[in-house]
Each structure stands twice: as C-alpha cells, then as structure tokens.
C-alpha cells in the first residue's frame, strides 16, 4: 500500500529519537486536548451549586444521564489511552478486512482496461459520521489511483460533500505528486433527490462502464439499484455502510462488503497510522466491556430467575448500575 508521507528533511538525527520525540509531543497534545475537554464538561456541569442535589428538577445536570456520562468517560478514556499508547510507538495488530485487500487490484484492473473508477459516497451529508469515514477512505483511494493514472469519478448528492471530496482528492493527488491529474469536474453534484441521484448514477454506470465501483457511506433504498446495475456490467464492487437495513443488499450484489463498524475501521486499515490503530484498539476495549457486562448481566438475571432471591436482585442492581 503506497503510503503518502511527506518526506522529512534528511538531517542526521537518529530515527528512534525522532520517533520518541514525536510520540511525546503527540501524547502531550492528545492529553491536553482531552483534559481540556473533560474539564470543560465537568466545569459546566458544576457551574450551578444546585448540582449537589442533581436529582432535583431545578438542577442543571440531567440526572437521568449520569450513567451515560460515566460510561462515556470510560469509553472515551479507553480510546484515548490506546491512541496515546500507539502514538508512543507501541506496535498494534489489525486483522484482515476482506475487500480492502483487493482495492489495489481493482484499481490496477481499471487502469489496464482503460476504464474509470466510480466512487459513491452515499446519500448522507457531512453531519453524518459515516460520510466523514467515507471521505477518509476516498482520500486513501485517490492516493492509490493517482499512482495508477486512471480516472476517478465521484458523483455526489450533497454539495457540502462535494466540497470536501474535492479538497480531499486534490490533496491526495498533490501528495502523490500528480496534481496535474486532478480533474475538478469529475467530482460533481447531481441532485439532492434520492432517486434522481440513483437514476443519474445508474446512467453513469451503464454509459461509462467503470471497472470498479465503490459504494462507501450511508446508503438507503438506492443501494440495490446501484449495486445490481454495477453487477450487470461486470464491475468489481466494494461496498460498505453503517446503515444496517442496506447491508443485505450489498452483501447479495457486491463482491465485498464492509459491515457496519468495518467501515470505520477501514481507514485505519488502509493508512496503518498508529493513532487510528490505537483508536480501533480502544473500540475493541468497548466491545470487551459490552461482552463482559452482557455476560454478567445475563448470569445475574439467570440466578435471580432461578432463586427468586431478593439479595441477588440487589447485588445485580449494584453491579449493573451502569446499565440501569
């Protein structure tokens, strides 16, 4: 995977020292931000003396959300911890994500055949986290494509997404040393209407016959309209969405599908950037927490249902306070 790194000045400093220095600087940066954020939140929550009786209706703090706050601190803390650990040079493993292995192959095939590559970033606007994930992936993909000299076509449904996509792709071409290959008009707005967008993308697919189609982002009913049309022209199709209702269609009609969280993991996988891998490790910790609590909760509930004991119920109330 060609990583785009801006080459640093060839000064004669030992690489390990550079790495250490960078890690320290980064740790300081991340910690400062996090401490600032937590302080800001806690400070605001205590801005009112009535917080002491948070449960009372006149309080500023919404007492119903105490658990969410505590869990939020735990989860974000875990993610941050691993980000900082990763930045300080701790090596992290990431499992294979099927589909991403083939990205380079798909791009190569398109170049050989002299056909374009279609990238559909989904229907959602920039207010949706999966669109941001999609833009990250587009950046990585564009870097690869820039190296291969094939055309990248990105029709979008939201003009904000168009702006971001243009900026991202332009930067990728620039960092790959091919600023001349960047075509602004290939990243264009179609229509805000879902099915007008689908109709136009279908038209693009049958007329331009791209060798590879990527559908990454938030998709709705048009998922299968696009994927079936893409399939009928024999394109390699790689899809990914965090919208569960559309996953079955991509699964049925595409070669590879990134399922839910895999979409968010994909950019870490492609970039292998330590901080992103660290954040992924933190997400795994979150899943670990979920599994432990599900097991504990079910075990206690089972015990309670068998024994009918009041003590068990009280114990589980305490143990499972976070999730009540």
């Amino acid at each position: 995977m060609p990583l785009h790194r801006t080459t640093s000045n060839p000064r004669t400093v030992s690489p390990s020292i550079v790495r250490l220095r960078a890690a320290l600087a980064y740790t300081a940066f991340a910690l400062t931000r996090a401490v600032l954020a937590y302080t800001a939140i806690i400070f605001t929550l205590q801005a009112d003396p009535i917080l002491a009786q948070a449960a009372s209706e006149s309080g500023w703090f919404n007492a119903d959300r105490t658990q969410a706050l505590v869990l939020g601190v735990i989860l974000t803390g875990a993610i941050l911890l691993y980000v900082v650990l990763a930045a300080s040079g701790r090596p992290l493993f990431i499992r294979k994500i099927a589909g991403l292995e083939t990205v380079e192959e798909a791009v190569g095939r398109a170049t050989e055949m002299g056909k374009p590559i279609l990238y559909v970033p989904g229907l959602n606007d920039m207010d949706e986290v999966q669109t941001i994930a999609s833009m990250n992936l587009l950046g990585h993909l564009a870097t690869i494509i820039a190296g291969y000299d094939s055309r990248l076509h990105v029709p979008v449904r939201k003009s904000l997404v168009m702006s971001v996509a243009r900026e991202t792709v332009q930067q990728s071409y620039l960092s790959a040393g091919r600023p001349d290959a960047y075509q602004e008009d290939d990243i264009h707005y179609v229509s805000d209407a879902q099915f007008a967008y689908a109709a136009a993308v279908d038209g693009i697919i049958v007329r331009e016959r791209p060798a590879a189609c990527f559908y990454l982002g938030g998709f709705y009913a048009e998922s299968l309209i696009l994927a079936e049309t893409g399939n009928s022209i024999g394109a390699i199709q790689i899809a990914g969405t965090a919208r569960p209702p559309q996953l079955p269609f991509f699964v049925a009609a595409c070669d590879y599908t990134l399922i839910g969280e895999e979409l968010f993991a994909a950019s870490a996988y492609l970039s292998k950037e330590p901080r992103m891998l660290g954040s992924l490790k933190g997400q795994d910790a979150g899943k670990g927490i979920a599994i432990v609590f599900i097991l504990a909760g079910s075990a206690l509930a089972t015990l309670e249902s068998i024994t009918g004991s009041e003590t068990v119920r009280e114990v589980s109330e305490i143990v499972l306070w976070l999730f009540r």
Partner: protein
Amino acid sequence: MDVTLQLWIDAALTLMILSFLYRDNPFYKFAEHLFVGVSAAYLMAIGFWDHLVPNLLGKLFPSLMSGVVPGAVGRSPDYYYIIPAVFGLLLLTRLVDRWAWLSRWALAFIVGGSAGFNLPRFLDSDFIIQVQSTMIPLVVLDQSGNLLWGASFSHIVLVLGVICGLVYFFFSVEHKGVLGQVSRVGIWVLMVTFGAAFGYTVMARISLLTGRMEALGAWLATIF
C-alpha cells in the same frame, strides 16, 4: 392543473424509467436528465421556503418577513440565528478562490457539531440500551417454576448471538483458535440477519411496484 394531462405525463415518465430494465435508451436518458434538473431545483425551492425563510429570515427579521411567515408577526428577533447565517455565508466563500479557505470554518462547525451531537446519542441509544436489553435470563421459568424450553432457548440464542457477533468485530486480535471459532459463529449470526432482512424487504419492493402498476392501470382505464 388538468388531471388527465397529469395522468398522461405520469404514465409516460413511468414507462420511460421502466424501459431501463431492458437496456439504456433515449427515453430513459430523457427521463433521467429531466429528473435531475427538476428535482435539484424543486428541493432548492423547498429548502428556501421551508428552512431559510421561516427559520432564518423569519427569526432574524420577523417584522420584515411578517408577510410570508405567519408566525413572525410581533415576534422579537432571535439573535442565536446569527450563528448559522454567518457559517452559511462562510460556506459560500468557496466560490471565490482567494477566500475559499474560509469555507473550512463552516465545515468545521458542521463536522464538529455532528460529532458532538452524535457521540452521546449513539452512546445512549445504540450502546447502553442495546447492551442493557441483552442482559436477560438464560433460563426462563413460568409462574409455578417450570422450565420453559422454547423461551429459554430463544434467550440463549440472543445472548450468544450478540456476543459472537461482537467478537467478529474485534479488529486488534487475530481470529484464530477459540476466538476464530466464536467469530465464525458470529458470521453465521450475521448471515441469518442478512438473509432474514433481505427476505423481509422483498415484500416492500413488491408493494412499490404494485403501487406503480395501479397508477398505470388508472391511466389505461381512461383510455379504454
């Protein structure tokens, strides 16, 4: 406007789009291009009148807008709405190359805002509550204490299914050995989910086609 005319346009456009099923053709191209132009403008007009006028202009200049925004009469300006107005205008700097970088401020507002808006929401509804509703007894007894086999089995399937599915999503460990087995079961669970959801959806899609065919039927009925 004329109902018969509308019925004919409706039928013609329906047939043009359906012709795509055979192959790409001039009729489909016409309908597609018409759709893109009309829908983009339609949604812009709706956005202008439904959002910009009542929610921005009506809030900032209620007296000026009283003619077109019914609720604005006698209201005092709401200055919080300067925030979106400023960021909206910053977004347009993209049109001028020299100032284009300013549009990043608007983008930062939107992206940062969605992050702040989504983080607690997903934490609460999709993490906490989903974990919570999976904490169920693996053994279900009826009132008199007899074991209910069916219900217990269902509960076990749910709890184990969620856990196996979660294990599949572990990224930072290799799926080998016991973990590999569990994550394989996780895939099976996901496959059942996908198959079930696909099968379930077929119905929705057929309903849509039924609706369209009924519309075509109404048109045919006017001819014969």
